[in-house]
């Protein structure tokens, strides 16, 4: 009846996951009770859960990422403490638990923190920057978000029902095969990634189509803001790479569930094929994450230097070059696995070549700052912190791209330090910069600068104190994923790293405090004009938060930095002189399709993990029925009457009047 599921799945003998699970459960219940008791449920349902508004979906993506960042962060704290104390002892985490923690940490941080954070920012901002009213497929957008949330839910469910994979975040066979991992851990891993992978693919298709087919009048390709370009590149990579992940995990699942022999040791299976396939996805994946961050930095650096982006066209070229070359370097993840010197040399050189366009970008940002009137607001701090940190990460990256050096450093703590250096220093700093920069746009008030700067400095410092020691430990021969060790020379560095995590945690607390304080002082921090940073691109040309239709008129773009030009030529003023003729606007209706689909996907995923076959069929039928019902509805759009559009738009124009006349004089 319930497949492999019974009471032994609940880890009653392990206090850590049980207590953590109980706390999370209580927290969720408390929030739910609060929502219901306060009568917020209808609001939540109509305005958020069923919303197909790209801005709302973007915010929900970022919320999901933030919550998951706390989960992945707690895993990191546990790992650092374990390695600090587990010198010639077992520490406080038994091996089977420790292995689950580092696997969950990697999986969550990449798939459920970094991915939703950047996809959320792209969702929120790209249609605004393109000057349009929504993404190409609004309902699918909602489906994509909720499927991502399903994946996150299943991964976290594994904390209390069953177990998570002990294989590392990429589940290499043969360890991940049934014979070596007989439990449900790998199944939790694979099914949650399959489901959230579908969500990511949907988001990718949606954003590619949006950038290529939905742009306002005059928004030629070479007038798009840099963030739109990097979004295009990143989502092209999603469309090209995520199907590889889907196929690879499908093969692994076929091996595990139906006794196929793709990656087994016997009957002709080929383990190296898994390495090639998974990294053919895995390497583009790092660029999927970091390219949007590059776009955010481009926007931030240009805005806070008060200058157009230096070398815009070379930036576009560099972005697209990275997009293509990222598919030609995957083998550098396993130089040591016997491909031979010729192949290794080619992939080593390709890996070093990809540093060139990245270097171009760094110089462009520096030259954008050069001679500019720089304002060191919090987003700019993250951008400058990124440049310093990312260069170090990039240099150690070029170092491990040299095959002979890689033979010494492969799977060492040096590698761990390297990829954290680029992912934290690149992606996470970028996500935070974007968060600080666009928060006023999303919510209509700025974030508190004092707490924001404190968060930056603690995170920045904490990062170095945590990860520079790991470089050294790696040089001293420490391999990754050690549950305990006997080498005295490593221990001091593990202590320093654990102390660094403490500093990082203070950074996280500052970040939370920043949000709390800002919400409390929101009236004082209110952004009335919609342009709090003296911005350059079209998202600042509408109010904060933007109306559901974003723009009363499709803006007419005449060059790069569209909104800056409008301000400079004070076109908004001429708009006020002749009252424009407002028209009715059609917007897509909200739909619970995404949420219901994800509900059935959750049931199906859970049932597949536990081999509850009748429930799988039920979930499948439910998901199909949901789509048919959605396809059957007669009205998928509603009309906002011209009067209402006019009323909303006039308020914003009024607020903006002073700003525009001021910008004209500068």
């Amino acid at each position, binding site marked *: 009846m319930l497949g492999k599921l019974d009471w032994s799945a609940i880890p009653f003998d392990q206090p850590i996951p049980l207590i953590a699970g109980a706390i999370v459960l209580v927290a969720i219940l408390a929030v739910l009770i609060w929502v219901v008791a306060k009568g917020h449920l209808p609001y939540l349902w109509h305005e958020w859960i069923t919303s197909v508004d790209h801005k709302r979906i973007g915010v929900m993506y970022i919320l999901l990422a933030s919550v998951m960042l706390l989960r992945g962060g707690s895993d990191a704290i546990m790992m650092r403490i374990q390695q600090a104390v587990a010198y010639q002892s077992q520490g406080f985490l038994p091996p089977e638990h420790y292995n689950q923690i580092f696997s969950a940490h990697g999986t969550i941080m990449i798939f459920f923190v970094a991915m939703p954070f950047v996809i959320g920012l792209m969702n929120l901002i790209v249609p605004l920057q393109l000057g349009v009213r929504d993404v190409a497929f609004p309902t699918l957008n909602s489906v994509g978000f909720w499927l991502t949330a399903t994946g996150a839910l299943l991964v976290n469910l594994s904390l209390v029902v069953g177990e998570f994979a002990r294989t590392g975040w990429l589940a290499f066979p043969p360890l991940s095969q049934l014979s070596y991992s007989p439990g449900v851990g790998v199944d939790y891993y694979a099914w949650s990634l399959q489901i959230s992978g579908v969500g990511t693919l949907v988001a990718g298709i949606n954003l590619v189509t949006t950038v290529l087919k939905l742009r306002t*009048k005059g928004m030629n390709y070479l007038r798009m803001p840099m963030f739109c370009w990097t979004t295009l590149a990143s989502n092209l990579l999603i469309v090209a790479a995520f199907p590889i992940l889907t196929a690879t995990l499908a093969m692994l699942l076929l091996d595990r569930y139906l006794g196929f022999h793709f990656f087994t040791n*016997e009957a002709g299976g*080929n383990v190296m094929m898994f390495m090639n396939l998974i990294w053919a996805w895995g390497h583009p994946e790092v660029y999927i994450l970091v390219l949007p961050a590059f776009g955010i930095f481009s926007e931030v650096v240009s805005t806070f230097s008060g200058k157009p982006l230096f070398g815009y066209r070379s930036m576009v070229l560099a972005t697209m070059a990275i997009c293509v070359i990222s598919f030609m370097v995957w083998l550098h993840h396993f130089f040591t696995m016997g491909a031979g010197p010729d192949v290794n040399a080619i992939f080593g050189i390709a890996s070093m070549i990809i540093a060139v366009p990245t270097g171009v970008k760094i110089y462009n940002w520096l030259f954008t700052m050069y001679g500019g009137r720089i304002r060191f607001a919090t987003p700019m701090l993250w951008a400058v912190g990124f440049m310093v940190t990312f260069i170090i990460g990039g240099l150690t990256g070029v170092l491990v791209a040299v095959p002979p050096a890689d033979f010494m450093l492969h799977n060492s703590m040096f590698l761990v330090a390297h990829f954290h250096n680029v992912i934290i220093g690149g992606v996470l700093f970028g996500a935070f910069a974007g968060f600080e920069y666009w928060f006023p746009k999303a919510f209509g008030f700025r974030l508190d600068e004092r707490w924001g700067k404190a968060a930056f400095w603690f995170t920045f410092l904490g990062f170095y104190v945590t990860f520079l020691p790991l470089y050294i430990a790696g040089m001293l021969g420490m391999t990754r994923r050690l549950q305990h060790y006997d080498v005295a020379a490593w221990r001091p560095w593990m202590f320093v790293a654990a102390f660094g995590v403490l500093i990082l945690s203070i950074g996280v607390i500052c970040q939370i405090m920043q949000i709390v304080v800002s919400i409390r002082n929101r009236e004082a921090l209110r952004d009335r004009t919609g342009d709090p940073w003296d911005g350059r691109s079209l998202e600042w040309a509408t109010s904060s938060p933007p109306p559901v239709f974003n723009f009363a008129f499709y803006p007419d773009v005449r060059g790069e930095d569209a909104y800056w030009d409008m301000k400079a030529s004070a076109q908004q003023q001429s708009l006020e002189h002749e009252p424009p003729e407002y028209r009715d606007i059609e917007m897509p209706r909200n739909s619970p399709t995404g949420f219901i689909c994800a509900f059935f996907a959750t049931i199906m995923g859970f049932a597949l993990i536990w081999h509850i076959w009748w429930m799988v069929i039920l979930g499948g039928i439910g998901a199909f029925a949901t789509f048919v019902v959605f396809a059957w509805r007669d009205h998928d759009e509603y009309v906002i009457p011209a009067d209402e559009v006019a009323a909303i738009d006039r308020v914003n124009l009024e607020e903006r009047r002073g700003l525009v006349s001021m910008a004209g004089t500068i």
Partner: protein
Amino acid sequence: MAMTATAGRAHADPHHIGVVIEHPGPAPKRTVTAYGFWVFLLSDIVMFSCFFAAYAVLSGQTAGGPKGSEIFEQRNVAIETVCLLLSSFTCGMASIAADVRNRFWFYLGMTVTCVLGLIFLVIEFREFSDLVARGYGPSRSAFLSSFFSLVGCHGLHVSAGILWLLTMMAQVFAKGFRADVLRRMMCFALFWHALDIVWVGVFSVVYLLGSGV
């Protein structure tokens, strides 16, 4: 919007390349839908290419089991291929009928497409069950694993396509040739033709090349 043309035009060609083609604005819904679906099809073909790659890597790994030439029956494959190629033609007929809003020819075209697709699936199912009955199931060898996965993945797509086809017929029956129904019909046709192209790949790589060895 009322704007002074001269003020803005100065920026229209910032790099002085002499050519300024103004982007006309957001594309119409039909274009957007078709474009997005093309992008999806590309991603689907990337997924197929992984299974093709796996087949190419593993096709020699028979682990003492049968080789391709020992189990492929060319007559069946020929019938399958004819069915599928013909169904692409009838699907095209149905698309044209939808465009001219002719219900009779639409239903006829879709029904024939459905029947041909079902014949294809039945033949494939019989091939699979026959192999399993002879002890040559997917767990026999890596070659058979990759064979069953590649061909089965295509078969699953055809099955999903038939489910979609029936839904489309029901939609036209209930809603008529509405704009959104027509857009979905266009996507369905693209999907069905794409499956044909994938089958040409399967036919060539698996059955033609495999029969010789």
